């Protein structure tokens, strides 16, 4: 199993969620994060004080999936999250040793 972790633009969350549901993924965990990267930030001015803000709001999606599905899911997310503009984000795939559904005690693929 793998954990697919995608960093995307906030306004793309609904699209990605719909796309994932479309390919049969029915669980995910989402976190509000701040991203630093090539996409340049903005300047904020409060009276005399000017601040260059380089961290931009992003959304992190984590989905645990069976290894066989990883490629399909990465592609699905990438397609749904893409605007073609700088700052679209990244998708990372990490190894996942075990999974457990707390409610039932089911493990691994059955837990997803």
């Amino acid at each position, binding site marked *: 199993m793998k954990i697919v972790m995608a960093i995307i633009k906030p306004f793309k969350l609904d699209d990605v969620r719909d796309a994932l549901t479309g390919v049969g993924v029915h669980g995910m965990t989402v976190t509000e994060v701040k991203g630093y990267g090539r996409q340049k930030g903005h300047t904020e*001015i*409060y*009276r*005399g004080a000017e*601040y260059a*803000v380089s961290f931009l709001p992003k959304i992190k999606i984590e989905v645990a999936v069976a290894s066989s599905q990883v490629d399909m899911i990465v592609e699905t997310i990438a397609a749904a999250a893409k605007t073609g503009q700088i700052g679209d984000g990244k998708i990372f795939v990490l190894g996942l040793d075990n999974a457990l559904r707390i409610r039932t005690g089911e493990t691994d693929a059955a837990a997803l």
Partner: protein
Amino acid sequence: MTLKTLLHAAKGGFGGLAATALLAGPAFAQAPAPALSEGNTAWMIMSTVLVLLMIVPGLALFYGGLVRSKNMLSVLTQVLAVASLTMIIWIIYGYSLAFTAGNAFIGGFSKMFLAGVTHETVNDGGSIPEYVFLAFQMTFAAITPALIIGGLVERTKFSAILLFMLLWVTFVYYPLAHMVWHADGYLMKLGALDFAGGTVVHINAGIAALVGAIMVGKRIGYGKDLMSPHSMTLTFVGGALLWIGWFGFNAGSALTAGPVAALALVNTLVATAAAALGWLAVEWAAKGKPSMLGTVSGVIAGLVAITPAAGLVGPIGAIVLGAFGSVVAYFFCTTVKNALGYDDSLDVFGIHGVAGIVGSIGTGIFVAPVLGGVGVEDYSMMAQVWKQVVAVVIAIVWCGIGSAILFKIVDLIVGLRVTVEREREGLDLSEHGERAYNM
């Protein structure tokens, strides 16, 4: 009847008070008898409530929104506690020191604990109970120290703030209030105009905050870390409530509900509107974007600038004064402060001090009948502006030296500043044991 004799007729009261009797047009001439007026009393009770609204929640939110959330409660607590403390002192000896006969610089102790004040005593104009007059003045004596907090936030000990304010109202505020508003007062006799407190309140608070900001020192990370305001919304609300309450401050300073209050009402509307647009416009031109904080800062600058002039200049003069005060304050807050490098954290000097000076001197100009003002006896612009400058300089010197000495004393007794760890953790937790938000 004209207003020529305005200030020289003042008999032991508030600048604006005497003005009222003299402003009386035909409609009013029949009724200046020294009887209690329910209408005036109603207005002055409301004015008192409005000035309290400026302090809490007005000023507390205006300041609080500008700090980081870890220091929010410290600001709220400081404002509330300082106001409470100075109200009690006002009853004990403040009212007496400011508003009883003494010498040109300070009153006496004859009304300590409100001795002699009863249901039957009235203010000098005779139309409102003395209780109302002293309550109205109490709120001025409470908001002025609260304003100073803006220069000290996010790093000063709570105990230091309480102690400093106790000393400061005693040695700086009461004398200055006496000098400006009591018939025997040095500046009153000089003929300097200050309708609602430009020198006593705003220049005074602005200078004290500047001295404090320098003596307490910069916040850790100042000029380096992101210190964006934690809630601009709260700052907006606070600024708006300051505007609302300021009608009590300015139009209330007429001490009557008549033509003088009416003029102050209009001026407090239009000077402020012009100042909001003024800041917005220069910022738009200079930085490319007009900001909410800029517009609200303009509101406050305009209110400060019109304060000494509120019942004395015409509406067009008010518009000019408001816009000009705002633009000068903009320049100080954005350019001069950065150049000099002091951390007057919430721009008490940049806004209250600077616009207060502009307003005080501008009052000497726009009071001119030829510019739509109400005039003063034997008016000469040069002479009047000179008197205004003298008053401003006296306020600056008196307050500057006094505040520096008092901050030093407080530093020796309790220490001005919290430790680095406490500052970093935030004053809410380290000084008050609470957090503002648990969302």
